[in-house]
């Protein structure tokens, strides 16, 4: 057997098998080789000294016996193979616990490049607790696999190679760990040992007995066969990367320096290389501890190195916070890559050919690359810390789910993007957009596309059809070609015929090795269609839950036009695919972990498109499709809820369904179901190979570990599209998930993405942005409202938008109420702050801030909620409900008949005149402010009139001067605020609103109905301002429509009251309404009408998703932490379809908390992020900062302290 081993060809490529003189012999050799490999493991175990490995050499069995024993155990091997692994796990568990090795039990399997254990097994072993989640996969038993691999009937056996010579290198500073003479001399063969200090079963070097006269100086040289089996517990690589060497008598001579041993150990652990024919070049005649020894090492690459044994460990349970971290698999890949790079450098192996990687990586100098690699290896302290912190939660969170992800992204601040950076990133991707070709949609398409939409259609269509057919012959951009160097002096063993193509390929980015030519291929047939805002900060995300839709650029329409354009998969593409598949049977890229599962049963082909959208948008898709194409052109099925049982039938039935629309929720649950199922249940979603998959609002999957993301990766289709308003929400990594879904190699490999984008970006390396630009250039089409076409016209001509912010002043009373609340909250805050308890009482403080924000809107919003001082305000509210209104006509009649309580007849006469004047004149100038206003009041008895503001402030002034309130015109006293009569005018061409219980009483005699009403409703500054504006608009445009946003539904209630008082028609929209009710409200509002209509909307419920272009006035009653949310709300009105100028007015009260909210809005990007989210986690530093702003009285706009 040793003879066989010795004569194994250094390299044997699969396609050269035929060149072997005796295929049978070849096969046998191979079996032997493979067994030999595993024997090491078996023989090593019984032989190992129990604990101290450093003493091992003395006790080691003679090499010959080990070989014999190997023969003996050979037969047992087959049955033993799998149990071995479990044994090891147990062993590990028996070890004395070490503090840092808490994870140890999980680790063994991970880095185990055991020949016979493939990735499936690894997963199983790693997570025994997860076992029930997995469908029982047939355990591949090693011997059959071996046979299978050799079975000539198997279409493409994996490449079979031998350990191949890679090169030789000199270690000049190996150091002795023993002193004395005669242990070693130049020319001696040495054995290299991988040291496992904590493992009782340190590897034993098996010494081959074959002689090799070529290498040594006539000395007999032993072949060293060393394979570190990683089924032996792999240690923490950083700690145990010790490599020792021994002389032929098995006495340890010394160690390798850490610089070398680190990568050596790593590669040995991973079964990538082994060392053979290592000799001492020079050493001092008498060794001392630490003496330098010069060694020559020959490196051989193991066949297993070329195995695609790398899997991304996607299934490992990970708490959401770890999203940023790499999975174990990714980490190990990275380490392997670094070690390989170090090896290649050490042995002086240079790529024969490396293709230019776009404009990015190729330009990196080798040094840069190393730097990059080093960087990736550096322990990232923050990560470790956060994972340590977070580990408490692990048990709780268990499997990641989409919701948890929300919490995740806040970790790495430095990875966040500013608007500017995003701009830069997108700029390039949009460079050539103006000159793009347009494409007409097919005839069935019922709508007209805008210019930019036609361009998009052309782009999308060519993304699907264009590039795919072309066969690219060039080397994959990320791979490098290496030539196996001929082993010097081994001429007798080299098969010269192999030389011409003994290449191998290395991917310096992922660390993968292969013998197959990695073809540059574009697997991604699809892209990202994006539009809208650069930056939508996080708070918006929660709003997504309610509803979401495109930002008005017509992604939906564009996608429908594409669905109509490319309805089947063209046969020529099919051929190309098959060709490609045949050539590349074994996918080399990462991320195919799922295919193991997926490929078991062939997926059913269909020509249907699968659209995945947020639940709230499912119906919108359906209606849009119906609207956009001629009847019956596209059959649509919304696969959601209880109707979703017969998807397969629907697909197969007759002509089948053209479009299936489902939600992320359904997708996720189907996926989990399939995953948990023991009976190999496979959801028809995943069983089907779709023609096209469209992810609407694809940022739902931006967290690559979330269920929806993983489910999405697992879908199969010919074409893939992601629609999103925000391809990058706030971190570059957001893009990763999209690329992964699109399978846009190589970026769909996480370690690659991380090494080349995330990490450089955090290091402020501009290259990261450059790379992202290149990527986006290829897959992304992004449109913004503000973009211009080639003629310099805006691609979307939207009417003007005029935004005004009104800073209002509180009335004195409001100011008093507000200030007292503020004082209370502030002292509360100061007290907590002084005691350092803010973090703990975070929610409490947030509640107080909310109170302040309500106080700004209307005092009763605060007081009504407080039991102790609620008396007045409660009454107000109650009173408001039965608004007493007196018809003017009635009043005049009463006066005419003398039916008044007022005294003198002259007053009566004046009153009559005044009232007549009122009735006749449309407008009257207020005697105090000299302006014409709508909110006139009448002073009872004398019937002088003036505007409400003026009289109220006059009365306030009287009170201040301790005078009795009186009429400013005639000084009639006493006069109280509540005595005043509001004059409410209604144009008579509109019938009284049904929701007003007052009767107009006018018999159509006058052109204007005037109603007097007691001023018994406690209004507020903001409400007054709103009503003023509404009335003014009504005068100018009698059938205007306006949208009023507020965050507080309780304030919406008050707005409703004032609207009712002034007889405005309104509709309300808030989160408590059912979808049906909401839809009805929107329909009623958007229906054309000759009366003014007001839409009272809760910002959270209606800030996104609605299309309210029938309105052109927007009122923002308050401000939100995040400006993006506000502009998002405004976009409900200011979007495609709007043809009037949009007027936006925001009401703010000066010298209140609102000014500070604005301040926070302006801080950095949206620091706001979760700053005020009030999640259980408590407060971070930044939110505390924000809180301090809220209570910073040194501000200019701070509340005046009393």
């Amino acid at each position: 057997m040793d003879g066989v081993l010795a004569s194994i060809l250094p390299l044997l490529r699969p396609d050269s098998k035929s060149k072997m003189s005796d295929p049978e012999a070849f096969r046998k050799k191979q079996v032997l080789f493979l067994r030999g490999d595993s024997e090491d493991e078996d023989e090593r175990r019984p032989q190992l000294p129990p604990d101290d490995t450093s003493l091992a050499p003395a006790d080691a069995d003679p090499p010959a016996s080990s070989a014999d024993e190997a023969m003996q155990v050979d037969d047992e091997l087959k049955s033993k193979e799998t149990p071995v692994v479990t044994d090891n796990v147990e062993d590990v568990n028996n070890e004395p616990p070490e503090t840092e090795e808490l994870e140890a039990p999980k680790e063994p399997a991970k880095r185990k490049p055991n020949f016979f254990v493939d990735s499936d097994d690894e997963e199983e072993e790693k997570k025994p607790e997860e076992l029930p989640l997995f469908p029982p996969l047939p355990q591949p038993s090693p011997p059959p696999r071996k046979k299978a691999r050799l079975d000539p009937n198997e279409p493409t056996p994996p490449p079979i190679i031998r350990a191949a010579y890679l090169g030789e290198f000199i270690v000049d500073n190996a150091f002795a760990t023993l002193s004395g003479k005669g242990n070693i001399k130049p020319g001696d063969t040495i054995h290299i040992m991988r040291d496992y200090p904590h493992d009782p079963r340190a590897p034993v070097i098996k010494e081959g007995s074959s002689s090799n006269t070529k290498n040594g100086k006539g000395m007999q040289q032993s072949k060293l066969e060393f394979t570190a089996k990683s089924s032996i517990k792999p240690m923490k690589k950083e700690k145990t990367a010790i490599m020792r060497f021994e002389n032929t008598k098995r006495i340890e001579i010394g160690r390798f320096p850490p610089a070398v041993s680190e990568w050596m150990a790593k590669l040995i652990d991973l079964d990538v290389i082994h060392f053979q024919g290592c000799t001492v070049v020079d050493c001092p005649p008498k060794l001392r501890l630490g003496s330098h020894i010069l060694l020559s090492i020959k490196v051989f690459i193991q066949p297993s190195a070329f195995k695609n044994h790398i899997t991304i460990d996607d299934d490992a349970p990970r708490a959401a916070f770890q999203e940023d971290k790499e999975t174990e698999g990714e980490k190990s890949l990275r380490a392997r890559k670094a070690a390989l790079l170090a090896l290649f450098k050490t042995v002086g192996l240079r790529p024969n050919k490396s293709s230019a990687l776009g404009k990015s990586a190729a330009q990196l100098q080798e040094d840069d690359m190393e730097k990059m690699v080093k960087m990736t290896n550096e322990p990232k302290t923050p990560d470790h810390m956060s994972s340590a912190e977070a580990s408490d939660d692990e048990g709780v969170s268990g499997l990641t789910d989409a919701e948890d992800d929300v919490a995740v992204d806040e970790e790495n601040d430095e990875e966040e993007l500013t608007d500017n950076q995003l701009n830069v990133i997108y700029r390039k991707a949009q460079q050539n957009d103006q000159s793009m070709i347009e494409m007409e949609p097919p005839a069935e398409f019922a709508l007209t596309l805008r210019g930019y939409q036609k361009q998009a259609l052309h782009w999308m269509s060519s993304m699907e059809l264009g590039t795919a057919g072309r066969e690219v012959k060039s080397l994959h951009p990320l791979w490098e070609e290496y030539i196996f160097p001929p082993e010097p002096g081994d001429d007798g063993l080299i098969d010269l015929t192999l030389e011409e193509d003994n290449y191998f390929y290395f991917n310096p980015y992922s660390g993968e090795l292969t013998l197959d030519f990695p073809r540059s291929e574009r697997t991604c047939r699809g892209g990202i269609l994006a539009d809208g805002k650069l930056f939508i900060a996080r708070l918006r995300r929660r709003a997504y839950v309610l509803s979401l839709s495109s930002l008005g650029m017509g992604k939906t329409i564009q996608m429908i036009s594409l669905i109509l354009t490319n309805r089947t998969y063209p046969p020529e593409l099919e051929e190309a695919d098959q060709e490609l598949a045949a050539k590349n049977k074994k996918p080399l890229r990462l991320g195919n972990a799922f295919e193991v599962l997926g490929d078991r049963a062939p997926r059913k082909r269909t020509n249907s498109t699968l659209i995945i959208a947020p639940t709230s948008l499912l119906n919108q898709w359906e209606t849009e499709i119906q609207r956009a194409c001629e009847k019956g052109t596209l059959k649509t099925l919304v696969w959601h809820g209880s109707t979703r049982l017969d998807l397969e039938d629907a697909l197969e039935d007759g002509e089948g369904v053209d479009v299936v629309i489902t939600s992320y929720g359904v997708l996720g649950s189907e996926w989990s179901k399939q995953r948990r199922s023991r009976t190999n249940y496979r959801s028809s979603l995943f069983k089907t190979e779709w023609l096209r998959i469209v992810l609407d609002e694809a940022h739902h999957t931006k967290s690559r570990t979330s269920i929806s993301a993983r489910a999405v990766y697992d879908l199969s289709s010919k074409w893939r599209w992601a629609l999103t308003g925000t391809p990058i929400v706030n971190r570059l990594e957001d893009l990763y998930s999209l690329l992964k879904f699109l399978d846009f190699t190589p970026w769909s490999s996480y370690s690659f993405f991380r090494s080349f984008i995330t990490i450089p970006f955090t290091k402020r390396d501009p290259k990261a942005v450059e790379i992202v630009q290149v990527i986006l250039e290829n897959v992304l089409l992004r449109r913004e409202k503000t973009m211009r076409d080639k003629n310099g016209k805006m691609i979307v001509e939207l009417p003007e938008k005029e935004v005004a912010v009104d800073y209002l002043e509180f009335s004195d009373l409001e100011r008093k109420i507000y200030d007292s609340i503020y004082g209370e909250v502030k002292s509360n805050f100061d007290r907590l702050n002084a005691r350092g308890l803010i973090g703990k009482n975070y929610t409490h403080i947030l509640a107080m801030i909310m109170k302040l924000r309500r106080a700004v809107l209307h005092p009763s919003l605060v007081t009504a909620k407080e039991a102790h001082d609620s008396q007045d305000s409660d009454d107000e509210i109650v009173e408001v409900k039965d608004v007493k209104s007196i018809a003017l006509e009635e009043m005049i009649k009463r006066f005419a008949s003398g039916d008044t309580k007022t005294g003198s007849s002259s007053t009566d006469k004046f009153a009559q005149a005044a009232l007549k004047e009122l009735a006749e004149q449309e407008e009257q100038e207020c005697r105090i402010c000299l302006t014409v206003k709508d909110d006139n009041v009448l002073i009872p008895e004398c019937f002088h009139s003036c505007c409400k503001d003026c009289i109220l402030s006059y009365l306030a002034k009287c009170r201040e001067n301790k005078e009795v309130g009186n009429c400013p015109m005639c000084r009639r006293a006493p006069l109280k605020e509540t005595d005043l009569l509001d004059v409410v005018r209604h144009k008579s061409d509109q019938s009284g609103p049904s929701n007003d219980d007052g009767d107009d009483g006018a018999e159509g005699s006058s052109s204007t109905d005037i109603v007097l009403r007691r001023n018994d409703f406690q209004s507020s500054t903001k409400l007054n301002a709103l009503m003023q504006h509404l009335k003014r608009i009504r005068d100018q445009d009698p059938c205007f429509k306006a949208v009023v946003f507020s965050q507080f539904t309780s304030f919406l209630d008050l707005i409703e009251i004032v609207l009712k008082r002034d007889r405005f028609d309104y509709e309300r929209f808030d989160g408590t309404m059912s979808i049906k009710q909401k839809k009805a409200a929107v329909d009623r509002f958007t229906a054309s009408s000759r009366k003014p209509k007001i839409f009272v909307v809760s910002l959270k419920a209606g800030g996104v998703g609605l299309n309210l272009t029938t309105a052109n006035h927007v009122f923002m009653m308050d401000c939100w932490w995040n400006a993006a949310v506000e502009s998002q709300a405004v976009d409900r009105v200011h979007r495609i379809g709007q043809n009037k100028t949009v007027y936006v007015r925001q009401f703010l009260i000066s010298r209140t908390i609102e000014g500070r909210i604005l301040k926070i809005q302006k801080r950095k990007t949206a620091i706001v992020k979760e700053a005020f989210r009030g999640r259980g986690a408590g407060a971070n530093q930044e939110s505390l900062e924000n809180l301090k702003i809220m209570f910073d009285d040194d501000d200019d706009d701070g509340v005046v302290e009393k």
Partner: protein
Amino acid sequence: MSLPKRIIKETERLVNDPAPGISAVPHDDNLRYFDVAITGPEGSPFEGGIFKLELFLPEEYPMSPPKVRFLTKIYHPNIDKLGRICLDILKEKWSPALQIRTVLLSVQALLSSPNPDDPLATDVAKHYKEDEKGAQNVSREWTRQYAS
């Protein structure tokens, strides 16, 4: 501090539609400060005179009355040596329904009908009470001397 709409409107009206015998022009640098000229009412001892006054609109205007003062020396029982005017609407009887125009008309009316019973310049009031003719002559004399 921006100027309230009311002040702007009042100023416009004063300039475009001045009350007979009254002119009020705001300063360029302070629109709340007016140079006022009132012609002496016919039939009064102040006839023929042009009296200069200053008028200032305080911050709270129109909730507080404007401040008005004669700059021209005048012999009047309700106007003292410093030009201060004793007029109820400039004090407790002020109402925001009043305006600059009405205030100045009131001042003009005060010239026609001095009210020695509610004096500010007590000596002048005494003179008016004891010898109205003589007092009026002094007023006329002062008007000729200082107000023309």
